[in-house]
């Protein structure tokens, strides 16, 4: 009787899917490939600095105006430069066929997408945060504002990467992906922008900022938990499309 029910026994390795090593491999690969594509790494950063520089030149170089609008300018510039970098979040993998391999992995796609977005944030979001104090000084923000600006960017830029990943996945493989991506994603970015700049302005006027930071944190948690699902679903659609 028992001989008839001879099923292949699961070995220890097949028993537990090696999730963490897979995520680590994805992270390592993504970071390595972005370091080797140095130009793509620096382009959004240069764009960030140039957009900020446009405002004193285009609107007004007066200290009072810049101090008032500085946080908003930096936030808008950060948002635009994130948008610029999103297009190649999945594109290289898609063109090289790596993405299809990723979809076929036994590990949950949710975690792999999560890892890819974190890698994206590490190479685009973190440099923005590091650059922000320097630009903050250039637009005459005081020390306190710069501190809160960096804090909000720290909470907000991952949200930008996560929401953007959904748009990048949806527009993968389309001809005019860049402009369509902006059209889809900017509306979803607006809340982050509002609370991000709201925090700095409230701190400037000496108001309580706890609620703003809590809302930004809530957005971060929501994006962290939900956005990879949507992005993973969108990736499956885009890849099956091609």
């Amino acid at each position, binding site marked *: 009787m028992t001989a008839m029910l001879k099923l292949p026994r699961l070995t220890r390795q097949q028993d537990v899917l090696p999730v963490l090593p897979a995520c680590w491999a994805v992270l390592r690969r993504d970071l390595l490939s972005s370091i080797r594509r140095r130009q793509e790494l620096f382009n959004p950063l240069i764009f960030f600095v140039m957009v900020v520089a446009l405002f004193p030149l285009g609107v007004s170089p007066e200290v009072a105006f810049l101090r008032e609008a500085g946080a908003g300018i930096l936030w808008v510039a950060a948002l635009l430069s994130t948008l610029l970098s999103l297009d190649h979040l999945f594109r290289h993998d898609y063109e090289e066929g790596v993405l299809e391999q990723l979809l076929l992995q036994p590990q949950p796609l949710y975690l792999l997408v999560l890892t890819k977005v974190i890698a994206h944030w590490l190479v685009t979001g973190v440099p923005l945060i590091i650059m922000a104090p320097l630009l903050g000084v250039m637009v005459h923000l005081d020390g306190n504002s710069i501190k809160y600006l960096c804090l909000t960017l720290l909470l907000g830029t991952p949200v930008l990467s996560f929401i953007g990943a959904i748009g990048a996945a949806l527009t993968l493989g389309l001809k005019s992906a860049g402009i369509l991506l902006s059209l889809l994603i900017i509306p979803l970015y607006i809340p982050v922008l509002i609370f991000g700049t709201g925090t700095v302005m409230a701190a400037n006027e000496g108001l309580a900022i706890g609620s703003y930071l809590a809302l930004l944190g809530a957005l971060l948690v929501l994006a962290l938990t939900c956005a990879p699902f949507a992005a993973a679903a969108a990736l499956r*659609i885009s890849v099956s499309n091609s």
Partner: protein
Amino acid sequence: MWQFFHKLGSPKWFYGIAARLMPWLLGFGVILLGGGLVWGLAFAPQDYLQGNSYRIIFIHVPSAFLAQSVYVMMAAAGVITLVWRMKLADVFVKAVAPVGAVLTFLALFTGAVWGKPTWGTWWIWDARLTSMLILLFLYFGVIALGNAIADEKSAARAVAVLTLVGVVNIPIIKYSVEWWNTLHQPATFKLTEKPSMPMEMWVPLLLSVLGLYLLFGWLALLRMQTEILHRERRARWVQERVSA
């Protein structure tokens, strides 16, 4: 019940049922909306504070109401597309997205016209107004994405994902007047509570809202019929209908 659900998968059956429903929707819609507007614009009493300028409410509130409902309906259809892969759900989304965009624009425009005499400004960056503007952008995004993807099935599923992501904005619009202390007045119109305005204003408003819903239903069915004819253009029943 289940038979009905399964029949919904057949475009031909739906085309027929839509054709039978449409005259009723159109007729009652015109009567209700027309009645509500005539009553509201000509016979309802003046507002003690805003005089006659408040009368735009009979267009503003129904369009704003419907602009949000249409998005929620699209998101519901998105779930149906993703889970049951039902073609008609996608036909619905494709047919009503431009209608929703027009309604959102109408709500913003009538709001601006109303804002000028009451607030003294055409536009203000108030939470309700801003979130409605975002809704307009979301509609544009849905339409653009649907047009950009050539393959019908992929387009349907991609649009479904996008509508589901964007539906987060709806509660923000709904509660923006309560969460933020902004210029826009709180909701004037709730079905669940006793109305805060006199009956002579509330009843025509209710009639206009219901009338616009019915007219929307008529327009949605009409546009869905057109889309079905286009998609099923190779089917024999369509060719027979067109040549007849």
